[in-house]
C-alpha cells in the first residue's frame, strides 16, 4: 500500500497523474494486500480495478514464487519479484519478462526489518524508468522524515543497483494453471488461506465440546460436526483467536509449510 502511494507521489512530482488504489477487506495484520496504480499524462478517471496490468510487482517473498501472480499480465509485460535469485532461475514462464531483486535481504541490512516496500521501488525505478530514483527519494523523505527516511532511501538505492535486469520468463510453470493468489480485497474472497503464517489444528481427543472456538472465530471458519469443531481452512486467516479461547488448550498453532 505504501509502495503504491509512493509511486503515485513520485510520478506526480514529475508532472504526471496517478491513481493508487489499495484493496481493503477484513484483514489480518501483516496479511498480503493488493494495491493498483494507474499512471497517465492526464487525469485518470476510470475507477474499476486493474485486471490486465503492464507490470506486476510482488513484494511478498512467499507469493513471489507463485506463477498465479502473473495472471492477467499483458503480453510483453514485466513481472518484478522479491526473490534472492536471478530471473533465469525463476520457475514461472510466459510471454513476459521477469526481473528479480533480493529486497528482503536489502531491507534487513538497511532497515533491520523485513519491510521491503521501499527497496522494491528502487528496482522498479531501475528496470522500468517510470519513476525517477530522485523523485522516489523525495516521496520517501516526505513521508518518513529523519533517520528512518534516510535508511529507506538507502534501501531504495541498493535495490536500484542490485536488481537483476529483465529476462524472458522461461520457467515451466504458467500462470492460470493454479488458483489465483488470495489477497485481500473489498469484493468477495474465495479463500484467505494465503494469509496464514500459522494454522490452528484441533486435538479432538482433548476437546470437551464447549463450542467456545465456534462462537469466537471471527471468520465463521469453524463448524461443529458431532459436537466437535471442524475448521474450514479456506476461511481461516490464522488469527489464533480459537487457540486463545479454548479452555483446555485443545487447539494448537502450527507453522504453515510452503
Amino acid at each position: 500500500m505504501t509502495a503504491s502511494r509512493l509511486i503515485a507521489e513520485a510520478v506526480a512530482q514529475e508532472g504526471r497523474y496517478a491513481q493508487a488504489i489499495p484493496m481493503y477487506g477484513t484483514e489480518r495484520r501483516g496479511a498480503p494486500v493488493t494495491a493498483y496504480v494507474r499512471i497517465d499524462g492526464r487525469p485518470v478517471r476510470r475507477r474499476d480495478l486493474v485486471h490486465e496490468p503492464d507490470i506486476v510487482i510482488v513484494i511478498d517473498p512467499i507469493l513471489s514464487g507463485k506463477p498465479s501472480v502473473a495472471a492477467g499480465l499483458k503480453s510483453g509485460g514485466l513481472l518484478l519479484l522479491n526473490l534472492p535469485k536471478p530471473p533465469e532461475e525463476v520457475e514461472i514462464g510466459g510471454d513476459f519478462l521477469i526481473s528479480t531483486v533480493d529486497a528482503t535481504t536489502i531491507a534487513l541490512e538497511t532497515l533491520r526489518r523485513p519491510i521491503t516496500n521501499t527497496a522494491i521501488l528502487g528496482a522498479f525505478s531501475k528496470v522500468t524508468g517510470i519513476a525517477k530514483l530522485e523523485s522516489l527519494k523525495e516521496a520517501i523523505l516526505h513521508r518518513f522524515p529523519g533517520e528512518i527516511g534516510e535508511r529507506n532511501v538507502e534501501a531504495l538505492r541498493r535495490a536500484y543497483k542490485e536488481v537483476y535486469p529483465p529476462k524472458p520468463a522461461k520457467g515451466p510453470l504458467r500462470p492460470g494453471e493454479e488458483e489465483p493468489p488470495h489477497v485481500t480485497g473489498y469484493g468477495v474472497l474465495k479463500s484467505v488461506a494465503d494469509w496464514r503464517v500459522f494454522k490452528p489444528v484441533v486435538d479432538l481427543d482433548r476437546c470437551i465440546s464447549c463450542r467456545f472456538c465456534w462462537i469466537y472465530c471471527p471468520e465463521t471458519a469453524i463448524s461443529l460436526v458431532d459436537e466437535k469443531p471442524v475448521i474450514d481452512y479456506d476461511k481461516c486467516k490464522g488469527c489464533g483467536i480459537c487457540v486463545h479461547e479454548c479452555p483446555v488448550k485443545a487447539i494448537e498453532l502450527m507453522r504453515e509449510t510452503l
Partner: protein
Amino acid sequence: MTLEVMVGNKAAATAAKLSRVQVAVAFPVTPQTTIVEYLNEFITSGEMDCEFINVEGELTAQVVVQTASRVGARTFCCTSGPGCLYMHHPMHDTSSLRLPVVMAVVHRGNKGMQPDHTDLMSHIMTGWMQWYAENNQEVLDTIVMAYRVAEDMRVRIPVAVGYDGYILSYTAEPVDVPEQEEVDDFLPPYKPKPSIMPEDLDLRRLRWWRTPWEEHHKAIVEAKEVIKEVNEEFAKRFGRGYGNGLVEEYRCEDAEAVVVAMGTIASTARDAIDRLRAEGKPIGLVKLKCLVPFPYEEFQRIGSEVDAVGMIDRNVCLGVGGVAYTLIRSAVYDLEERPRVLGFHAGLAGKEVKVSDVERMAEKTLKAARGERVSPLVEWI
C-alpha cells in the same frame, strides 16, 4: 495552488480545514475513520483552529454538531454506513432548525462494509441536501461550496456530501489544494441566525425554529438557484466548475441517448463514453451531482433532447426501485414527447463497475433510443 497526492478522506479533512471549521464532531467508522485522524493531525499541529468533540456514537455526534451550529460555530461532521443510519432522527432536527451543518458521508452500503449509496439515500426524507462526488478533487471542492450554499441566508439547509468509500476514501490521486486566502475570499465567516443570546431571544418565536413542512420543502427546492450561482462563482475563482452545480453533461452534443450516473460510476463512465464516441455512437453522460433538491428542470430539458435515458443507480429503494430512475421517469412524464427511460442497478454492495459494464448499459440505452425492443427495462448488473 499546490498539487498534492491525497486520499479522498484527506481531501475531505483538508476541505474542512480550508473552510475554517470551528467545531468538528464525529464518531469513527470504517471507511470514514481517517478523516477523523487527519482532522486531529491538523488540529494538534496547529494548522487548524478547531474544537474536535469526541462522542460515544453518531446519534450524539449529530446532536452535538447541531447544537454547535446553533450557537454560532461553523461545523463539520463525517460518517459512513451504519453510523450514518444511526443519526437519522437528529438529522431531521438539524434541517428543520435550518442549521447549515456540512457532513461528509463516505459511502458504505447497508448490507456490509462495501460501498453503495444506500446509506445516504436512506435519509432522502430528512430535508438535507445530498451531493455526490466522483473524485478526490470534487470531494474537496464540493465541501467548500457546501458551506457557501448552506450558510446562504436564502437557504440555511444542511448538506451531506457523499463519496464512495474505499474507491475514493483510500485511493490516492493528485488534488489541487487552493490557497487559504482564496477560500477565505470565497467563503465569508458564518453568521448564525437567529441569535440565541438572552437579550435577542424571543421565546415566542421559537416555533419559527421548526420550519413547517411546506416552507421547508420550498426552501430546499429554491436552493437550486443558489447552488447554480455558487457553482458558477467557484468555477470563476478556482477554474473548476461542476456542470451547473446540479448536473454535469459530458459529450452530450447531438446525443441520441444519455446514461446518467452518480459518484465514481460517473468517473468510470467518462472513459466508456469516450470509447463509444470514438466508434461514432451518439451517446453522452449526465452526471447527477445533486440528488436533493432534485434537478427536475434539467432532466426535462435533457429528456426533450434525447430519445432514451439510462439511469445507473448504485442503490435500490427496496420494493420501489432505483431512486434516481424513479425521479427521472417522474421528471420526464410531463413532456409531450417522452424519452424511454431505462434503469440499471449497478455497484451495489461494492460490486465493481467496469468501463465495459458502462459501455454495455450505454449501448442498450442507445438501442432503446433507436426504437429497438429492449428487455428488461430495469436490469441488475
